[in-house]
Each structure stands twice: as C-alpha cells, then as structure tokens.
C-alpha cells in the first residue's frame, strides 16, 4: 500500500512544509534490484589498529569493487559523499580506545550520502579476553544505536560483533549490511561466530538449496518465497487450503511445489517431512512465517482466541522444527528462520497472546541455537516492526500513522525488507550466524 504522507513530502509544497514545520521527512529507501551493486559509491574505512577483522573487511571491500579510503581528513574537507562508513573497533582493548570512534566519525558523518550505511565491527563482548575489553566492546552498542537516530535521509547504522577467529565469516553479513538489502534494518546488533567456510556465488547464494516457507501464499510469506527463489532456492510453499489459489499462483511463478495444510494440524510436521523427503530428499532452509493475530485485551481474551494465536505462531514452529530435526529432514548446513515481532520484544496493548507467541519464537531461537550447532544447523529470527501489508493496511489510520513514523527512518518497511533479512540468514555463507534475532523495524522506538 502507498504511504500518502511520504508521497506528499516528495512534492515541492510538501518539502516546504516539512522544512518549516519540522515534520517527519521520510526519504524513500533504496532497495536492491536485479543488477544492483553491493554498494554504489565510495567507502571510508577506519580502525583501531591493525586487526584480522580489519584485514577481512578491507579484502571484502576490494572484492566487491568498492573504492575505499582510510584517510578521514581528506574526505571531510572534500566534496566526496561516501556511501558507507565502516569502522573496525575489534581492536578496542579498553575504554580509552573508544575515543577513536568520535575521532573517526565526527568529521565525516555529515558527508554520508543519502541511504548511506554505517557499520561498526566489534569483538563479541562475552568472548573478550579481558574485563577492560569486554566493557569497551559492550559500549559500542550505545554508540551505534544513538548514531542510528542521528543520521538522516534513509541512512542506517548497525553493529556487527565478531567472535575471535571468526573474521573470515564476516563476508555475507557485511555484504548484507552494506547493500540496499538491509534498507529497513537499522540500529541492530548482529553476532557472527565461527563456522565452516562456504564459497558460494554471492549472486545466487541459495543455488541447489530447498526452502520450506510456511504462509507462503501472500504478504510477507510470498515476498520471502520470491526472494529465496531469486537467490536460487527451490521453494516448497505451505499454506492453508483457504489460500490454495494465491499459493498456486506464487508457486507456479517460482516453479516451486505447494503443500496445503494447517501448520497446527497434528500431523503437519510429518506431512511436511514426507513431502520434502519425497520431492527433494530433504530441506536446507525452513522459514516459519505462518502467523495470525487475534487482538483482544487480556480481560476480554477467550481461551480459543489465546490458543489459536499460540498454536499457529509458536507451537507449530516448535513442533515442526523438532520433528524435522529429529527426522533428519534438515540437511547439515541448513538454516531455520523464525518470524518474531517487535511486539514480542516491546509488548503491545491488546496483544498478550501475539506477543507471548512471538517472544516464544525468540526463546525457540535462543534455546535451539547451541543444540542445533552440533548438527551444523543454524537458527535465527527476524522481528519485523511496522511492515506495509494487507494486515497493517487494516489498522486504523491514526495508529497506522504513528506506527509508521516512530522509527529512525520515519516510514513503514516493506515485505521485501523482511525477506532480504531472511535471505541473509538462509545464505550458507552465513555459517557463523546463529542465535540472532534481528529486528526489521527501521530502528523503531518500541522496545529499543
């Protein structure tokens, strides 16, 4: 659906009003399209000393053909408008080193191009070798989250924590955060750990992979199916029989197969496993997207309303994941992705059932990540904020307007933004990415 206010702000009259009245100024975000480069513009790189992570970052920048410089002063005094600022803070051993953040960013931050990217790479605090290092690394989060609120014109700021010896795993994550694929991911912290090195084609990272997407008939689910197929995956789309027709359309377009079932059915997991085994001899990617809302204040909540939401949003992913893992349907190197929600993080009036289910999805990720690592299966979740869908189009106007604007990017996200984040999790090259819950919310103020 269209954001009429945003369209209006792009007119001369709209711009005049926005500037003079201090109204929100939501810049149209740049999204990845066929043929887009990872980063379209120059990059300025800074670091605290020479580190392994720094070397890996610079190697990647060379690899993607980005022109980058390390001299901040030159940029600050020139007309150059860098598209990205990447800072390697893994070398921060104590709080004294945090000064470098200000020294690097203050002179150049104003120069950042529209829809620019700021990425700070730090060392996973919990894995620091000293107390001083732990404190310094933990401090980075406050820096990036605040800077996210300061940068304008569709720019994003994210922090990537990398584990010791995991610098070679940074590739897929940095590509994601640098590129237009992360347009609506802002103020987030990603954690990259160690894992096997996977040398796949970044243009078609999912070639030869099979992806199960539940709720694939419409909205965010259809966008996920489209995006994973774009990246080379074969799609097994699941939806309820009521959505047979739209599901058929999506799967015909993508050349995938369809399976009509209710994920809450007692034999849903077995049916999925049997279908996947028969058609594809297994699965590589599982996206638990199917979800419903049945909003009611708790005082007015009926048992069936409560159960319906928990059954679809939480118990079904829990049961299906458990069965697919036990049955060995998910192959080594596989990736499971849950769909949580900022309501599951921040809570929401009238959504005790929904928020319980979505917080439970986060629990599912956190509980299973270490266990599944033994089988070389990863599990992560996205937590969408305000995404423009048929569902949010039904939200009353004022609440919808507020929902759209109370984030750093001052606009709603699109289904593709959620899908791109899922595609990053699904990428086998993200072998070091597990146990993450990444919000796709434009840095919403809710639960931040």
């Amino acid at each position, binding site marked *: 659906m269209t954001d009429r206010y945003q369209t209006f702000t792009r007119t001369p009259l709209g711009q005049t009003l926005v500037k003079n009245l201090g109204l929100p100024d939501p810049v149209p975000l740049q999204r990845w399209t066929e043929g887009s480069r990872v980063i379209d513009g120059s990059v300025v790189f800074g670091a605290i000393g020479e580190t392994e992570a720094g070397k890996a970052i610079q190697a990647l920048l060379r690899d993607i053909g980005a022109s980058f410089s390390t001299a901040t002063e030159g940029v600050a005094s020139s007309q150059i408008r860098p598209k990205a600022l990447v800072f390697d803070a893994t070398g921060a051993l104590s709080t004294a080193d945090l000064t470098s953040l200000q020294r690097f960013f203050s002179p150049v931050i104003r120069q950042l191009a529209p829809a620019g990217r700021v990425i700070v790479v730090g060392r996973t605090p919990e894995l620091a070798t000293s107390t001083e290092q732990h404190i310094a690394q933990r401090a980075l989060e406050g820096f990036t989250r605040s800077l996210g609120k300061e940068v304008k014109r569709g720019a994003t700021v994210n922090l990537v924590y990398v584990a010791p010896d995991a610098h070679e795993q940074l590739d897929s994550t940095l590509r994601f955060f640098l590129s237009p694929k992360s347009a609506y991911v802002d103020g987030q912290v990603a954690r990259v750990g160690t894992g096997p090195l996977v040398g796949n084609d970044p243009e078609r990272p999912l070639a030869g992979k099979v992806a199960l997407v539940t709720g694939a008939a419409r909205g965010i689910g259809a966008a996920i199916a489209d995006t994973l197929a774009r990246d080379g995956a074969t799609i097994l789309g699941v939806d*309820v029989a009521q959505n047979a*027709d739209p599901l058929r359309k999506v799967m015909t377009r993508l050349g995938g197969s369809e399976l*009509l*079932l*209710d994920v809450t059915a007692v034999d849903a997991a077995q049916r999925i496993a*049997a279908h996947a085994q028969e058609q594809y001899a297994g699965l590589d990617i599982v996206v638990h997207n199917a979800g419903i809302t049945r909003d009611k204040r708790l005082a007015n909540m009926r048992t069936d309303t409560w159960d319906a939401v928990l059954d679809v949003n939480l118990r079904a992913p829990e049961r299906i994941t458990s069965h697919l893992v036990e049955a060995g349907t998910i192959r080594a190197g596989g990736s499971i992705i849950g769909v949580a929600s900022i309501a599951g993080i921040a809570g929401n009036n009238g959504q005790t059932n929904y928020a319980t289910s979505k917080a439970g999805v986060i629990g599912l990720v956190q509980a299973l990540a270490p266990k599944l690592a033994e089988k070389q299966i990863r599990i992560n979740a996205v937590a969408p904020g305000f995404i423009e869908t048929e569902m949010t189009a039904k939200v009353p106007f004022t609440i919808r307007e507020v929902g759209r604007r109370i984030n750093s990017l001052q606009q709603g996200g699109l289904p593709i933004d959620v899908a791109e984040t899922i595609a990053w999790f699904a990428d086998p090259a993200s072998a070091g990415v597990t146990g993450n819950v990444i919000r796709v919310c434009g840095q919403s103020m809710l639960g931040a």
Partner: protein
Amino acid sequence: MTEPRRVAVVAGNRIPFARQDKTYRHSSNSDMLTAAINGLVDRTGLGGQEVGEVVAGAVLKHARDWNMVREVVLGSKLAATTPAYDIQQACGTGLEAAILVGNKIALGQIDAGIAGGVDTASDAPIAVNDELRNILLDLNRAKTYPERLKVLARVRPKDVVPEIPRNAEPRTRKSMGDHAALTALEWGITREAQDELAYRSHVNLAAAYDRGFQQDLITPYLGLEKDQNLRPDTTVEKLARLKPVFGKGETATMTAGNSTPLTDGASAVLLSTDEWAEKHGLRPLAYLTHSQTAAVDYVKGAEGLLMAPAYAVPRMLARAGLTLQDFDYYEIHEAFASQVLSTLKAWEDPIFCKERLGLDAPLGEIDRAKLNVNGSSLAAGHPFAATGGRIVAALAKQLDENGGGRGLISICAAGGQGVVAILEK
C-alpha cells in the same frame, strides 16, 4: 440378560428422489414420509398392523412438526397403536434411525421396527428473524392496546427479512461444499477423479434401474418413477464442462455435477428378528451387525468437516475384528465426490492412519469395483435424512442377491459427524 438377537433388514422402500423445487415442491415432509412408509406397508402386507416402533427424522423441519413421525404413523396404513419418535443427526439421521431400531430389536425390547428419514429442500421452513420474533413475543405478552402499539412501533423494515435455512455450519458460516472444497485441496483430489466418480454413480444407478433392481425398493410418487437427478446419458466430458461452484480460482474443482444437489424425498426400512420375519412371511435380506459414530473438531481446523467417517470406520473395524478389505461392497455416501475420494485417500495414507487414527499401518486401498455398485447420492440425489434408508435397503438387497457377503456403509454428516455400519449375510 439374554444374548443380543440378530437384527435382520427385511425390506426397504423409498419414493424416487426429486430435485429441489420440481415435482415434490408442494409436498411436505409428512406427505413424503407417509408415502414411503405406506409403500413399505403395502409391499410387506403390514396394513393395519402394529410394529414395535417407527423411528425417523428430517433435517429441515417445520417447528409445527415437532412430533412428525408419530403424526405420520397416525396418517399411515400402520395401526394407530404403533409408537414413534423423531430423531435428527443431520445426514446421518436415516442410518442412525436404523441403528436405534436395530438396538432395541437386539435387546429384545421390540421385535420389529421401521426406520426412516425424509427431507424437503423445497418446502423449507422460513422463520421470522430473532428481532421480529422477540417483538411478536412481547406483543403477545402486552396486555393493553397502548402497550401493544408501543411494542409494534419497534418493528423496523429489516425485521421483516425472514431467516431461510442455509446449508452452512453455524460455527464457521461456511457452506458444507466450501468445507469439502478445503478438504479436497488438502488431499489433492483432482477434478478428473471427482468427475469420474460422479460419472460412475450415474452409470451404476441407471444400470440398477435397467436390470429391475429398484423394482421392489421404490414406490412411484406424484408421477415420478425414477430419481429426477439421474442422468443416464451423462459423460465424463459433459461433467468436465461444468464450472466449479465451491472454492475459488484455478484450484477449485467441485461442480454441481460432482456435488449432490438439494433434493426432496423419503425412505423407510423394516427391521426385525428372524422369528418375526418368518411369522409375517418375510425373509431377511441381510443383518445389521455393527455400527459406530464419530465426530471431528472441524471448527478449529483440526480436521475436515466431512472426515468423521474416516475415524468411525477403523474404530468399528477394530471392534468387529475386520480389515477394510474384508468387504464385498462399500456404500460410501456421495455427499460430494471429493468427500468419498478424500476418505479413501486418508485410509491409504500412512501419516493420516498413524498420526490421526493411531494405527500402526494404513487401512489400505479398497477394490473400487465394489464401491457404490448401484449408484449413490451423486446420481440419486440426497434428501438429507432419507439417504440412510436408501443405502441400507439397497445394500441389504444387493447382499441378498449376491447370496451373501459383507457390506460397509459410511455416511458423513453436518457438524463434523459420521455414522457407519456393517451389513452381513
């Protein structure tokens, strides 16, 4: 207590089934049930005699017909001293009536009884809506003229809109066809398979008429001698041309040809002990040996609305110590071709049988040549409560003609219920 007695199906009779708003459009349920029972009485020579009990029902019934079956008996050729009562279990009514009569016979409470069912989709009850009903009841309670005027002033134009019974589930507001369409999708039942089943139903019923099989099963009514829905000359090609009526878009498969039409009609079956039959110069055609009901939770989407027979049959088989293949005939009521095909597919499916039925192995395939050999509801039509009687009578006769054997009856019903039974000889 003595051993239960064998329950014989001695005779059956029905009137030809008519399409909604056609030949029987001015006939009431009572008219049609009386015709079916009188035909049975004539054929069995029971005129003026008393039977233990008459049990029957109608799904769509006028409020004034609260004691319908007893009223029918009083207006029939049976002795006026024959007791009767009404039952209602949606499309399972007719078979359930036979089970109830059979149970009393088995227990020695009665020696013979008539089970039946009737339905009219033409002479349907139309009710005033709740708003107007409340106003009218208040009017009745009002004592003075000013009070009555005050009550009447509450009537609004919308209150005059009547409530017409709909073939829809009260809890889901979806029609039975729409429910069945979802199940068909989940089981991947194709349009071709449904049309083929519908075609076989017409061919088999037409053949049954041609060889005189229906001769002693039907009494003509209002000039109608055969089921009005029967299309002896239909072909798979003709059926394939029909537009889907349930479901949407390219995934829709259910048409007016492979779904049963709304129909008017009535049926009745005479059951008794061996001794009673002999005493009345009648002969057992087959015995009602087992029965079972089951229900599914279709409201939360845990199971399809019409899938209850898929649960009832294995439970009955377990009690009877039989397998699904131990039958010579299968009478699976064709509410929709997709219902029959979904049920058969479920029984063949190892996951369904293990996870939903709790069985170690699937029930397996049946020999399709034994299915609905004399046609079923897609060809004959389906006056809801009358279908059970049609099937029991026809299967009993088929078993008798065959010189013995075993037949399975499976009927799905609204509300997520299923009624199933076994006839043997």
